[in-house]
């Protein structure tokens, strides 16, 4: 993939050098890797290792991210959350997505990207409001420039394009990083989002976390394309593929894509090859569709271990550093535990407060009805049979 892509693409029958255009947009033959599973640096023609301090800081966030996943899983088991879609094993994608963008940029996460949102700096308890079940979203998207975590698949990619297009019209220096899963690439909205982004030439980086499963459905039932990154050329944007368990490669590849977007080079598509190590959510039973052996194969490719080895190798990390990072991770876990072990106070009137800026007379009547019921009696816990 050549890094700088012009604004205007030659068209159809008259394109003078289709071979060149193709070379620019097709992904590299194998996913970009900079640090291999054993923790060794594997040099690459196009992509450089990020600077050491940045890498160390990202590693710290990786460790905290893993701890968030583990703690959240535990809280679900304890009944403190309604559901948790774990990103265990995908933390490198989560962290990279959050750190490659700047304050003025936007992140568009899915339900699985809790770690990315927390890494971006949003209050963890506000983030978990959704999955705890007290409201549909707990943080202020505008304050953090982090959209609500999207459940309807691929729909958020279009919102990302809209935010970017508005930014472009307003002359803002804003890049939008939009996340989705491999399964979501099959949805019509994925197609429309990539096409809109390319046609309007807006600063969006689409990052597919290809974790090989959409609930129970493996990638091979989702697509027979050479790779998901090969979809990019069909929209006229560059596609790239990267080892999704290699934090260094992710930072580098996404960094280039974000830079291109920021400089007016338009959107691009990055496919990160990773793996969903755990169940889809706590409600899922993966034994029905994959064997523990399949999962085990990915353990050696874990994003944490390889980065830890590499950082120790190059002396950016020592025992002290590890202890400090572990303590920070424990602190985060404690925050989650403390916050979620307190029952949230919910106000039934909130049902009516935000549907419209001003309550309609219909909603006023309905709120009155509920208020009347509640004033007559404590609502029974078990109102439906």
């Amino acid at each position: 993939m050549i890094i700088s892509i012009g604004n205007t693409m030659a068209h159809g029958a008259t394109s003078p050098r289709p071979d060149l255009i193709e070379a620019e947009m097709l992904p590299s033959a194998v996913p970009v890797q900079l640090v291999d599973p054993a923790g060794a640096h594997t040099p690459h023609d196009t992509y450089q290792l990020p600077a050491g301090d940045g890498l160390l800081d990202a590693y710290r966030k990786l460790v905290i991210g893993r701890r968030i996943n583990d703690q959240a899983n535990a809280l679900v088991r304890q009944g403190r959350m309604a559901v948790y879609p774990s990103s265990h094993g995908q933390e490198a994608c989560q962290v990279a997505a959050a750190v490659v963008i700047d304050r003025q940029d936007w992140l568009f996460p899915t339900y699985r990207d809790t770690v990315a949102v927390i890494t971006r700096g949003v209050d963890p308890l506000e983030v978990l409001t959704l999955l705890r079940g007290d409201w549909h979203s707990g943080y202020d998207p505008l304050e953090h420039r982090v959209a609500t975590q999207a459940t309807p698949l691929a729909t958020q990619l279009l919102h990302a394009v809209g935010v970017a297009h508005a930014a472009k019209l307003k002359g803002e220096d804003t890049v939008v990083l939009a996340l989705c899963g491999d399964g979501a690439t099959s949805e019509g909205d994925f197609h429309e989002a990539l096409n809109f982004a390319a046609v309007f030439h807006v600063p969006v980086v689409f990052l597919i976390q290809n974790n090989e499963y959409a609930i129970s459905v493996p990638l091979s039932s989702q697509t027979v394309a050479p790779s998901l990154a090969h979809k990019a050329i069909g929209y006229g944007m560059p596609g790239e593929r990267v080892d999704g368990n290699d934090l260094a490669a992710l930072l580098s590849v996404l960094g280039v894509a974000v830079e291109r977007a920021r400089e007016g080079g338009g959107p691009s598509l990055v496919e990160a090859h990773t793996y969903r190590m755990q169940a889809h959510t706590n409600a899922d039973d993966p034994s029905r569709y994959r064997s523990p052996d399949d999962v085990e194969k990915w353990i050696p490719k874990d994003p944490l271990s390889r980065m830890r080895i590499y950082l120790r190798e190059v002396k950016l990390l020592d025992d002290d550093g590890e202890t400090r990072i572990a303590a920070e991770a424990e602190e985060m876990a404690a925050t989650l535990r403390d916050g979620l072990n307190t029952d949230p106070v919910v106000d039934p009137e909130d049902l009516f407060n935000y549907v419209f800026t001003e309550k309609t007379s219909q909603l006023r009547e309905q709120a009155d009805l509920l208020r009347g019921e509640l004033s007559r009696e404590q609502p029974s816990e078990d109102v439906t049979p």
Partner: protein
Amino acid sequence: MTDTTERVLDNAPASAQPQTLTAQPVTFAKALNAALADAMEADTSVVMFGEDVGALGGVFRITDGLTARFGTDRCFDTPLAEAGIMGMAVGMAMNGMRPVVEMQFDAFAYPAFEQVVSHVAKMPNRTKGKVKLPIVIRIPYAGGIGGVEHHCDSSESYYAHTPGLTVLAPATVRDAYTMLREAIRYPDPVVFLEPKKLYWSKEVLDLAELRETFEASTAAPSIGRAVVARAGTDATLVAYGPSVPTAMAAAAAAAEEGRSLEVIDVRSIVPFDDDTVCASVRKTGRAVVIAEAPGFASVASEIVARIQERCFHSLAAPVRRVTGFDVPYPSPKLEHFFLPSVDRILDTVDELQWEDQA
């Protein structure tokens, strides 16, 4: 189009069914699963597909075991795209199959809305019946399960408003089995709404007997027919799907207070059984319509409108509604304030002007 009924009778070796032989507690989910299996056994043109319906057996396990038993040609996973699923179903039906598709949750059927409204509903009419679309769209439906956003919508009004769709919502385990089989045998597209919160409800049933009874007849006794789920004299509760058990509980509670409520289980939203509903209301003179969906411009509105149009002079009080509020479906911690409850139904019954007017 081939005669389904005939096919059904031809190919149904009852003994091939690895299934309960005597009455025992059966869940709603199991009844649906058995109905699918029996339908696939009876008619090789029945195919089942959707998201996660293969190896996983569906997120609610309604398709559990179908791929293992019938192979991946008959029950299979698709790429993750609901318009794709629905559009492919249209084509497969055009070419002689009877597709049963699963939309994973109500709100995830919305991407298929254009296919449903502009094609599934219209194709038979557009072709003057030359192309029939015997498609069943199964939708795990409504709330009450502590699901997060987008997992608890009640979408029946969208479909019921769309001419050309038959819309069914069973409320009992027996109906779950029989109505799904009817739907699959039906010549027209059916939106089949499965109340999620009833998936784990149980009835003592003999599934094998149910199957035999169904296969021995060619009728569709539930489509277009409501049932009196509980007889009563003072007022009528009209409900369907997830609201039926709530209505039954309300009637039981009212009985303790000496008020006799009749409960109508609508079952078939389209076609709607005016006769059964009106007979009840003409008898009782009072009615409350219960549904989980937001009330505005809904199936509940329709039922109220129909009752007052047809039973006006029998009514002692306005027909009232207990429905979801006109707000997005709430988060788990708030949903019990939203859902029609026994208390809210009883309060509403109390307001049906039982005293003489001043």
